[in-house]
């Protein structure tokens, strides 16, 4: 049911009933080692190229979930490489229908929303949702060759290798998606591709405000506000913006998936990012730890919608953020 301008309440909440997460070597040394299901030993994992490894990550995860839930027909996903090629190549041998989005790191949020909308129809079916990212493949696509010696500023973020896929159903045990707020494209005039946090924080703020107004709630109604990949910089900006707007927010209430995945001493600068960042965190630590308790959590996936070519032609980074409320 539509409430307010861009928010929806789901009467038949979608339940996350199963999930599988996979991650790379750098994430293995991070905070979530115990909660991630599977690791790959290096960024190739016996494949010839980074892109093929990306495809393999997706294929493996999807196949594992398909073997457990063979009746699933739709997959809501998307990745960062041109036209979501890794996803589509990875799905060649399955019967899944891919519904792919191009919202960069916000893809997981939009996928969860779209899946929840589909289940809203009340069908007794399951759908798959998830995103994956691969550090080296994305780096090659968006920045410079991996071996190129270039100094990244402290505000830059590191793309996460890995991600997670989950199965949503109308019935079953698990955390439920109860509300969703869709984002708009925001251009706040930031143009530094090495500081995604500052560019994405306004979009996150915009979607949050819209949700608070539409649903007549405040941050105090939620236990946590989990952001996708704002990084340390973006998270601090978001906190200041919320306080400036007059909302009572607790600093501990804000959790950033990108910051949580890695340990402080790891060489990731401002934190993790990428399409798989939020899905990896939410489906490992979130499901196995946070949602064991009874919680009401805001999950916001933020994404930057630029491409290297577009950034050179028009130096603007438009951003978007999609929000879901998960209750357990």
């Amino acid at each position, binding site marked *: 049911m539509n409430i307010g301008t861009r928010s929806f309440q789901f009467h038949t909440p979608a339940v996350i009933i199963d999930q599988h997460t996979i991650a790379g070597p750098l994430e293995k040394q991070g905070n979530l080692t115990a909660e991630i299901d599977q690791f790959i030993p290096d960024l190739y994992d016996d494949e010839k190229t980074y892109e093929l490894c990306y495809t393999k990550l997706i294929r493996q995860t999807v196949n594992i979930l398909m073997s457990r839930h063979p009746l699933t027909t739709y997959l809501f996903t998307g990745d960062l490489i041109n036209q979501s090629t890794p996803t589509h190549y990875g799905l060649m041998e399955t019967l899944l229908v891919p519904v792919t989005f191009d919202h960069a790191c916000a893809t997981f949020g939009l996928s969860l929303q779209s899946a929840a909308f589909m289940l809203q129809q009340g069908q007794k079916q399951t759908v798959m949702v998830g995103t994956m990212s691969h550090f080296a493949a994305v780096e090659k696509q968006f920045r410079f060759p991996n*071996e*190129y*010696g270039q*100094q990244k500023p402290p*505000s830059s973020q590191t793309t996460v290798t890995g991600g997670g896929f989950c199965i949503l159903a109308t019935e079953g045990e698990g955390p439920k998606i109860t509300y969703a707020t869709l984002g708009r494209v925001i251009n706040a005039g930031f143009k530094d591709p090495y500081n995604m946090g*500052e560019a994405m924080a306004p979009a996150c703020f915009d979607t949050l405000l819209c949700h608070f107004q539409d649903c007549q709630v405040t941050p105090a109604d939620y236990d946590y506000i989990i952001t996708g990949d704002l990084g340390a910089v973006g998270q601090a900006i978001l906190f200041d913006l919320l306080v*400036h707007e007059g909302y009572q927010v607790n600093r501990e209430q804000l959790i950033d998936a990108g910051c949580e995945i890695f340990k402080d001493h790891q060489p990731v600068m401002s934190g993790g990012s990428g399409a798989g960042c939020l899905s990896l965190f939410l489906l490992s630590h979130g499901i196995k730890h946070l949602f064991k308790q009874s919680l009401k959590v805001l999950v916001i996936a933020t994404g930057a919608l630029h491409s290297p070519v577009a950034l050179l032609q028009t130096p603007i980074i438009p951003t978007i953020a999609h929000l879901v409320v998960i209750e357990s």
Partner: protein
Amino acid sequence: MNNKLFHTVAEKHNPPRPLLKNCVMSFIFGGVICAFGQCISLFYLYFFDFSEETVGDPTVATLILITMLLTGFGVYDKIAQIAGAGTMVPVTGFGNAVIASAIEHKSEGYVLGVGGNIFKLAGSVILFGVFASFVIALIKLILT
């Protein structure tokens, strides 16, 4: 939406680049590369038939050979993260830009991948170097 507010808040939280540390590191690494280059130069001066004027060429070639090894084993970008301009400004940075593009685009094949992308990063240096030199040489010829 209030863009001005976003920019003031973002400015406050933008982590400053460690300027002093970067400068010291680029001084040390850049200096060491140049000093190492001088050692190679002296080596060529003593044991091969090069004079001080021509010794620059084999020195540059040797440095680029070393760069190839460091780039290929994936060490160069790790050093560059610390050294900054210290590894970019010496000719090793030029070599690294060429070699990194070549290695990275190997997966797209040798003709269109390596061949088409090898000057992806170093191209601007060659373009502006050649064009500026052309203009300057012309000016100098006309003036003298």
